[in-house]
């Protein structure tokens, strides 16, 4: 019976090692200290994406559990001309969130989803609620470039 149990444990270990092996290095690491968001995006092989294809995407936290932080509501240009992704942030089951504007260079594409790599949820909670005053919507057919990351699991 003891040998049977040992065998089971070993089997589970083998499975655990295998599952872990797909992520030898983690994906979606935050920018190194001192690096600007634009510089960190340049390291992530930014790829063209249609703005209209971003709206509605889930925004994930780059951790193994891939917690959903919110959804992309719209993409705007702020007073300084920076492209910002307006994320319906927080809430529960899609209700009770509030919109915050996250610089697109703080985010990456992860297949059909996006991730916020440059800010922790604690930092995002301090973001002011988005106000459209002074911003302009980026038209849906505009192509912008967004960095990539591998899955964080």
């Amino acid at each position, binding site marked *: 019976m003891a040998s049977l149990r040992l065998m089971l444990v070993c089997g589970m270990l083998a499975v655990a090692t295998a599952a872990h092996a797909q992520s030898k290095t983690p*994906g979606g690491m935050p920018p190194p200290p001192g690096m600007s968001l634009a510089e960190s995006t340049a390291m992530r092989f930014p790829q063209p994406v249609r703005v209209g294809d971003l709206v509605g995407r889930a925004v994930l936290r780059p951790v193994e559990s891939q917690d959903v932080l919110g959804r992309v509501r719209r993409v705007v240009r702020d007073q300084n001309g920076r492209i910002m992704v307006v994320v319906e942030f927080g809430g529960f089951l899609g209700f009770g969130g509030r919109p915050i504007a996250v610089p697109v260079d703080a985010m990456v594409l992860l297949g059909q989803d996006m991730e916020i790599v440059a800010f922790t949820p604690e930092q995002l909670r301090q973001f002011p609620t988005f106000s459209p005053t002074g911003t302009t919507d980026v038209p849906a057919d505009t192509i912008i470039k967004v960095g990539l990351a591998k899955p964080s699991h």
Partner: protein
Amino acid sequence: MKSPFRPASPPDTAILDDHKPLVRSLERRGFVRGGLSLGALAMLTGCDVTRPEAVEAALLAISRFNDGVQALLFDSNKLAPTYPASMILRPPKFNAYYDVTNVQPVDGAGWRLEVSGLVANKRAWTLSDLQALPQRSIVIKHICVEGWSYIGGWTGVPLRAFLERVGADLRAKYVAFKTADDYPSSIDMASALHPQTLLALQYGGETLADPFGFPMRLRTAVKLGYKNPKWVTAIEVTNDYPGGYWESLGFPWFAGI
């Protein structure tokens, strides 16, 4: 309704009570456990289950057995589902055994595809050589062993056409790949000859981008994602099991879908 197969004189229900411990021990997980230890382990290897390496060897033997069964079930004429071009995810999803910041782009002009093993013509190929061959486009689902998937549109040279062109021995067992990112991979000949297996040069009608394998990657609809090496630099036709990056870490080799 009474079953027509019900015996005229049913057995005494007390029999069940007599064998209660036995029935309980046959619950599903216990059954699988028992099956694995007694049947698979003992019969496949005759090993001593107190030694972890023996257990690992036995589990790998089971994995190889599964590979064999999958190869037997593989139907070269059965096509994987395809999708309309409007469903192509642009850009595709990136994945590798390292994060995107470690991608080393390959210079397309200096790139050569080496061909070796059981082939008549071992001349190296340039990118324009490959572009000059007849191309095929497919919109297929990329399915990762991690559990995610996306629909992608790929254009390139059918691997079958390439293997015929270089005079490969199509009865050989394996087609093996080497890549610029040191990610060796290999597939069985039947999958290599499948019409939905491409040496892909384009994604969504555009030249492959650097993180997705420029200048050339394998893209097959009949295997899991990790069987699709990017930045391919060499193809070998062989009868000696070539293995692969994840396979050497315990992942199944056949990995069919």
